[in-house]
């Protein structure tokens, strides 16, 4: 059982013995870094549907590399923006956890991609400016990270030249 599975099992067990809102008290189970990883791991396969390699192993590698590229890129943003992003990831994580628990999925990985996309679209169309921002910001981070990698240019018929190899 990896850490993510552990977190979700703990949360689900806790939920079984309490009301739905108890979930929020257990956010401390996850560090802030983890919120970013968890949210990205949940969203990347949905956002990148249609663009990921079809081979399962290649797909897994592509997802990991894209997630790491997002995390690496964030270090170049101003400190206050990084803090806002971390807070945002925590907020989004709550949304994802709530969705998973509502559907009684024990692992976020079981949450159907269509539901993850619906969640993203609900952020895009949310009444709250923060969630609308989250949608456009995350989308940009994810697509930037994915299409920054040369191995994802195959379908684009594009290859970056090397003038100074």
């Amino acid at each position, binding site marked *: 059982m990896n850490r993510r599975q552990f977190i979700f099992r703990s949360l689900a067990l806790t939920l079984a013995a309490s009301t739905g809102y108890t979930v929020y008290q257990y956010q401390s189970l996850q560090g802030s870094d983890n919120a970013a990883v968890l949210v990205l791991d949940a969203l990347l396969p949905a956002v990148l549907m249609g663009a990921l390699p079809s081979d399962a192993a290649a797909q897994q590698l592509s997802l990991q590399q894209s997630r790491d590229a997002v995390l690496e890129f964030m270090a*170049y943003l*101003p400190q206050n923006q990084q803090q806002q992003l971390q807070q945002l990831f925590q907020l989004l994580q709550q949304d994802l956890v709530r969705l998973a628990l509502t559907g009684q999925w024990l692992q976020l990985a079981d949450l159907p991609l269509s539901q993850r996309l619906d969640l993203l679209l609900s952020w895009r169309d949310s009444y709250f400016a923060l969630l609308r921002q989250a949608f456009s910001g995350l989308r940009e981070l994810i697509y930037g990270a994915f299409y920054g990698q040369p191995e994802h240019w195959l379908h684009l018929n*594009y290859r970056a030249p090397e003038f100074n190899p």
Partner: protein
Amino acid sequence: MRNLIAEGVAAGWSYLDASTLTADKQFEADVVIVGSGAGGAMAAEQLSLAGLKVILLEMGALYEGKDFKQQERWAYPALYQDGAGRKTLDQSIGILQGRTVGGSTTVNWTTSIRTPEKTLDYWRTEFDADFTSENLAPYFQQAEQRLNIHPWPVPPNANNNKLRQGCEVLGWQYTVIKRNVNGCANLGYCGMGCPINAKQSMLVSTIPSAMQAGAMLISRVSARELKWQNDQVQSLVAVPVDQYYQPTSKIKLSFKARHYIVAAGAIGSPALLLRSKVPDPSGRLGKHTFLHPSVISGALFEETIAGHSGAPQSIYSDQFVWPAAEQIGFKLEVPPLHPVLMATKLTGLAQSHAALMQQFNQLQVVIALLRDGFHPDSQGGTVLLSDSGEPVVDYPISDYLWQGVQNAYLAMAELQFAAGAKSVLPIHQDALLYSSWRQAREAIRALPLQKYRATLASAHVMGGCNLSAKAARGVVNLQGRHHQLENLSVFDGSVLPSSLGANPQLTIYALALRNTAALINILK
């Protein structure tokens, strides 16, 4: 290919990477310049050639010639502010701004346009600026000669050619762009740093020349505060930045000079002056920041466009820059099309986004740069400081601007269909691919004009330390001298009292040359 600065440093030029320092250090010079872009480096060369001792500071790192990699995942974090992820406060407008030795001139798309006559007229009326095309002409000529600015003689790439074709069909005005290049191989990678030293950015022109004449270049240093008393700046305090270009706090660099030139760009310059709490009786410091907010329209063509290849900008249209009615004007240009730039701006999600990306080489893109700042309902944005003193621009989008966004979508779609597009996609969350001008026109008129729905971007930040003959209306005078602090000048895009309605580099070069000449007379 030669790395001019590295070779010069090997031969004895004075250069320091501040991030290598292990102890505090003091420096003295005749003139300290903060920022090595269009304003700062232009001044550095003239001052150094006049025999003055110059120190040129740059927050970014030194990359040149052979260092440049033609990959966005390298170039954006290495060469751009916030890894090219800079945004306005509410994240509604993306901002592309250079942060490297040479500033934005290292990464710009080489478009060189003299300040439009009507912009100068506006400055004369509103800010008592006695600039005319005639009295600025010598400085434009000087910059054009220095940087080999000339009309691009090579046929435009397909992306630009569609802009031209659309204009021809519709009878709209268009112009072949003048570019600051010498020996350009029409590669298309200007935005990631020219790998063959063809672009006449500051990196291959004024900076090596200033260093040859004795100027010292310090990279990876963030200017934090001007210490001042009465009407004099007494010193400048700076700190090294870390590997992610975040200011550090362990080591301090301090600079004493006879004169201080701030040229850190239209976000960085007001931020430094705000951190330093310099006098601001006009109340205009950090205010009236203009962005040329840009609206984007994609189009799919049957034929290959391959907008990543060839000079990124070679045609523009001024058909709509100065509309007769009470409407905001906009300039039509095209951007280079590289995978990250496109993927992050294109709309759609999951399969719909992937499907668009698969037509990457059939995609043509037009941008409309809104000419902000000439109207009571377009007073620009405000530079604010975070708790740690880092700047962010708060830029509200008025209904007047939104109307311009809609007009721009309409004009771009009409143009793209006239040029033969199969379908047109306004870059707006609620837009679809439209297959006829009639269909697009109806749909665009119904698009909600709201932030986050319309994708907006800026590559030109202007204002925040505006020039004005009168102290009550500006931060600096017409020579770029601070109205209150006697030995402080601002020589970059932040002095512009409105946007330009044209790409800003040539205006900044000319004003920097003009004002440096005046400054040399005083300092010599």
